[in-house]
Each structure stands twice: as structure tokens, then as C-alpha cells.
């Protein structure tokens, strides 16, 4: 259990501190031999780079990438502040 949590922490730090990634908004869950990645990033290149870096560092892990791209459409409504 401890090792599992350590692995999540190690991967989380890799996602933030690796200059090619620098993502604080991606969550990491590790079950059995499967790593599930969740969250939203700003481009498809960033999502692919995250998976590439993790596969390189942890070749034995199966990666499930549920990372989405944050949508950039204009809003349809206005909120009145009172």
C-alpha cells in the first residue's frame, strides 16, 4: 500500500516538475498494474507527452489516459452578480 502511494506521489511530481510537462492539474490513480490519469490539459501534444514520459519512466505499467482537452468555445450565458 505504501509503495503504491509512493508511486502515485513520484508520478505526480514527475508531471509537475518535468519541464516538458509542468502540469499540476492531472490526477494519478494506481490500481494493480494499471495507472489511470485524469484531468484536463490545453493541447493534444501535452496529453501525449504525459503518456510518453510516464511510459518511459515506468515501462511495466499499463496506462489508461482519461485526460481531456479543455474546451475553448465562447459562453452562451451571463451570470448576474448581486
Amino acid at each position, binding site marked *: 500500500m505504501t509503495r503504491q502511494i509512493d508511486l502515485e506521489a513520484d508520478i505526480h511530481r514527475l508531471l509537475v516538475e518535468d*519541464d516538458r510537462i*509542468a502540469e*499540476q*492539474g492531472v*490526477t494519478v490513480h494506481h490500481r494493480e498494474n494499471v495507472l489511470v490519469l485524469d*484531468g*484536463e490539459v*490545453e*493541447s493534444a*501534444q*501535452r496529453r501525449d507527452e504525459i503518456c510518453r514520459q510516464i511510459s518511459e519512466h515506468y515501462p511495466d505499467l499499463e496506462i489508461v489516459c482519461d485526460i481531456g482537452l*479543455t*474546451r*475553448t*468555445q*465562447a*459562453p452562451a*450565458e*451571463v*451570470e*448576474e*452578480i*448581486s
Partner: protein
Amino acid sequence: MIRIAAVGDVHVDKDVEGRYRPALEQLPDQADALLIAGDLTRHGTVDEAKCFANEFGGLAVPVVTVLGNHDHQSDRQDDVTDVLTDAGIIVLEGTATVLELNGHRLGVAGTKGFGGGFAGACASNFGEREMKDFVGTTERYATALLDALRSVQCDALVALTHYSPVPDTLAGEPLEIYAFLGCYQLGQAIDDAPTALALHGHAHHGSERGRTPGGVPVRNVAHPVIKQAYNVYQLLSGTVDTKHEELVNV
């Protein structure tokens, strides 16, 4: 009335250029100004700042920003600020600006802010030098925000920060990291001035709505939270607007 478009955490680099532009071109129909709540870039480099200025500069409405922690990553925050300022983008840090919009004066006071935690779970200015430095930083940013908020005369006052002034808008983040996402001192500063609305980012997994203990509405506009190019908030509803002639004649 005044309509404010707001977003945070756009984390621009080359790969993002062009993504926001179609929605930004619609801005003049949607809002009178655009406020951006920090984490403008990925690593705070000058090149990334230029990408941000390309994407968010040259718009038909004024753009007001604060920096975020990502914009400090390369220790080039002063150069980043210069690049944005040269592109006509306003960058606030312990400062305020007043925009004349539809005959109303919108005051925006901004700071990056810092972590420190919230009531019952906050760091104290006590013990090791490192801890006192941490909380000293929290307090310095909060004081800068209060001074900025109190420095303006306006019809509607908005506080713009990167870190959160309340825990409400962090719901969805792990409780263990709340102290790294904001501090109650920013909320106190907002309550100690006649603030109408507080906008922040940084908490990508947080939630949109909250209030300070004094009742000021708080909105987390981090891009992954609002899930669109920007949100629009309307202030001074029910007031009489005066428009520029060219706008009236359109």
C-alpha cells in the same frame, strides 16, 4: 451595467496559440473587459509570454491580468510583465487600475497572492525561519491586495488573484493541499474593502462559486473549472449606461 469576461490558468505556449482566438474575437459582443487570473504561461519564459501576448493581445476590449505561480517558474516574472505590458495588456501586482466602461468606472485590484491555508487549518508565523518566510509571504501579498483595493475610486470594485481567498471554491481538490491553494488573509483583504466580486484561478479541480465570510461573491475561473474560453459576469445591473457615439450608431 458592466459585463466582465474572466478566465484563469490558460497556460499558453506555442501549442496553444490560436485555440482561444475564435472565442476572443467574439468578446466585444459578450463583455466590456477581459480579466485573466494568472498562470498565463507554462513556465514563465519570455517566449511563452510572447505566445500569450499574441493570443490575448490586440483585442477590442481591455485585458487585465495577474501572474500565477507558473509565471514565476523561470524567475523571469519581471520580463514576462514587460512583454505583456508592451502588448497593451495590464498586469497588476499589488496595484489597481480603473477602466471607464459604458460610463461606469470599473476598479480592478490584483495580486498573485499565495498559499497559507484557511481558518482552523492555516500556517502560523512561528518557529523556523522557513515557516516564517512562508507565512510572511502570505501576509505580504494580502496586505498588497488590501492597499490596492483601497487605492481606487470606482462604481464597481473587483479583486483579481491567482490563489484563492476562500475554501469554498476549492471543493473538489484534496483537503490536504488547500493550504497550497490559497489563504484566508486574501479573503480578509477583500472583506475590508467595498469589493463587489472576487475572481481567482489556480485550483484546476475546484468549483466555481463561493463567498467570503463578509459575503462577497467569489468565482474560481480556472479554465478546467469553467470549461469554456471565458465566463461572463454582469455587475451594476439596472444602472444607466452612456455609450460612445460610434457604438450607439452601429
